[in-house]
């Protein structure tokens, strides 16, 4: 190994460590700020474990959604998909299908939603933001019709994935799957290739439309897993209409931005998971402070945008759209 090669390897190693360090410092600072402000009811070890478990829910969806975001597309139907999948999974579970109904219902619904998103995006050639916004309205209405206006409650004996160790095992399997897709399949390579330059990717024989479709489909399945964790953790789900599901888009999307920001350190999946943990620390910190929800949202939004802006460190002169 020549000197330049050795220095490059060291550089790569230090790059990932640097990424982890930045993330850990951010987590620590988030914890420290609220620990100082409200020392008695925030940030104990038990509290932190609880925040971490809560963060696993959005992380499970975000690691799949990352494929869509990297390709330069977007999805505004996340919240609607979660609600629809949770309600269908919950209904099937309550109908006597147990865990098979819960897992099958959520994952299949996620897959169908992803398929529809991808299909309409590819066929109609309309920006993904518009397509998924339109479809979100349909998914919301569908969920409302299926739920019949009532809250759907998951039977108490089917909440394995709402607590330790079930939730952690399912989440870890999900993260591992996302990591494997990105690093050990053609899909991961093509995802980055399409995100980098679609024209060149097409010229290299990559079926761009197919892989974009696949990204939505995979993302949908991950949102299905997120639905399992959501309904298991919260135990019930209420269908909403009029785009009220949009508020559920925020957390997984922000997690993806962490992934994008830390892609340069080679740890996007890890960054999503740690980033979501930090989002939860901030969220529960505000809860501990007793801040009104509106103030919480404003400050959380600002804080996260600042964090992502600071960590992304765009190349000077680079065009951002």
């Amino acid at each position: 190994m020549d000197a330049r090669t050795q220095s490059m390897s060291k550089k790569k190693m230090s790059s990932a460590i640097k990424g982890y360090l930045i993330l850990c410092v951010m987590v620590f600072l988030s914890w420290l700020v609220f620990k100082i402000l409200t020392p008695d009811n925030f940030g104990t070890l038990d509290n932190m474990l609880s925040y971490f478990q809560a963060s696993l829910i959005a992380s499970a969806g975000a690691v799949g959604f990352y494929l869509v975001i990297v390709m330069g597309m977007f999805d505004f139907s996340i919240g609607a998909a979660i609600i629809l999948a949770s309600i269908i999974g919950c209904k099937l579970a309550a109908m006597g299908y147990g865990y098979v109904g819960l897992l099958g219902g959520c994952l299949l619904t996620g897959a169908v939603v992803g398929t529809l998103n991808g299909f309409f995006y590819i066929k109609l050639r309309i920006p993904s933001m518009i397509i998924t916004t339109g479809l979100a309205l349909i998914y919301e209405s569908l969920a409302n019709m299926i739920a019949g206006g009532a809250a759907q409650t998951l039977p108490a004996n089917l909440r394995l994935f709402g607590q330790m160790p079930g939730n952690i095992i399912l989440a870890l399997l999900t993260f591992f799957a996302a990591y494997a897709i990105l690093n050990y399949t053609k899909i991961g390579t093509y995802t980055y290739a399409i995100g980098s330059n679609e024209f060149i990717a097409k010229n290299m024989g990559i079926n761009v439309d197919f892989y974009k479709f696949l990204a939505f489909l995979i993302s949908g399945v991950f949102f299905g897993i997120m639905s399992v964790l959501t309904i298991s953790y919260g135990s019930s789900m209420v269908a909403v209409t009029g785009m009220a599901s949009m508020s559920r888009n925020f957390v997984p999307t922000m997690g993806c931005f962490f992934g994008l920001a830390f892609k340069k350190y080679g740890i996007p999946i890890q960054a999503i998971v740690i980033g979501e943990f930090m989002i939860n620390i901030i969220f529960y910190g505000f809860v501990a402070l007793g801040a009104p929800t509106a103030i919480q949202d404003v400050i959380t939004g600002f804080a996260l945008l600042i964090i992502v802006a600071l960590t992304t460190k765009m190349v000077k002169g680079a065009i951002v759209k």
Partner: protein
Amino acid sequence: MSEVRLQIQHLSKSFGITKAVRDVSFNVSKGEVHALIGENGSGKSTLTNMLTGIYTIDSGKFILDGKEVHPKNQVEANNEGISIIVQELGTLSGLTVAENIFLGHEERFVKYGIKNTREMNRQANELLKQYDFSHIRAEEQIDEYNFEDRKLIEIIKATYFNPKIVVIDETTTALSQEGREELYKQMNRIREAGNSVIFISHDLAEVLDKSDSITIMRDGSYIDTVRSSDVTEDDLKRLMVGREVSGDYYRTDYGEKVSDEVVLSVDDVSVPGLLHDISFNLHKGEILGFGGLSESGMHEVGKAVFGASYGRTGKVTLADGTEINNISSAINHSIAYTSKDRDNESLILNQSIEDNITLPSLNDLAGPLKSLSDKKLRTFAEKYAKQMSVKMQDVDQFVSDLSGGNKQKVVLARWIGKGSDILVLDSPTRGIDIKVKQDIYQLMNRMRQNNKSIIMISEELMELIGMCDRIIIMKDGAINGELTRSKELNENMLISKMV
């Protein structure tokens, strides 16, 4: 007679009403470097893009080793034994070096849907070692490497599978001398292995030196195929342009005194990591050249003068004391800039010629209520497009449809229309054919005579020697010497200060 590798038979291609390639037929032999030359817009790249699957064929066929081939994309072309190295960057950010090398050919590393990344990296590292590019590591992100290294990776990508035909499309202009030597070495290797290279270049000296035979195209049609040893540069120019072209298209004046009047002063300008304490003056009616190796910082000088550098310190001052610190003040004070990266930094490709020419002059063309008249804009664009002899259907045509030379004419038309007095031209003739080059040199000379001042940044030493009153040579981000126009000035004198 040598054995035929590729037969091109009656090939045609149109884009709308534009016939880019018209009934072209010629053969490429085994074990030869076959140059393909012609003016911008002559159809060379369209032809090779059909061969490599980037464009579909309208009519005609390619016969490779007796079998008709019609690839639909580059991977299919690769599978047929055809590959291409393009002028601009052909690698993808966000992927590793190994992923770039094997992009589209991952199947060989995939078992049960799982990609064997370790094996892919191992094979890529072996290739890098074979090609003597050991400083590049297969597992690294490609973004870790500079333009030059990424071009070397493209060379591996295009040649590692021993293709029968490798198309090298105007690649050398993007490379430093070192990179060019590496490319020439690979061309020889391909030739010695009995395979063939289709070599597209505007540098006729390079074409004569490196190729065995040369096919000339003009206006989409086949003109002739000649042996390199049988022709001179002037013969090639005549065949390309269709008439006699004077060999000395550079300036012919020597000893003319340049005005003492300074129009622009650059004092102690630095840009972090790129430029260190650069100072010089530009005089009225002067063409001041900047030369050096591609990473010497010379391209940053242009950006620094135009206010487009980041973190610049020092002063750029006009004769009246106005300081230029950003692009707006540069344009408002009659400074123009054309970037080396024409497509990304100078033009808005998916807009019309009219939009591109009128863009910096919109304020000047606006009416009393800042309203813009379509007629006025069109007349303005037509006037300057015509003045620059842009080959086009009309000014509504998208710039993306134009050849490289005509794109450059649009960029220049924009600044001539703006009436700029100081022009910073970075690589103004990059990738441009001999006829358009001549037009640009003549334009620069006329501008100089009309007291316009020009900073010309170029990697082409002959054009610096031929066109400039003074040449500043850059090395490692600093000025390493200055040479004055004279008949005795030669390339070696410049090179000695560059390296």
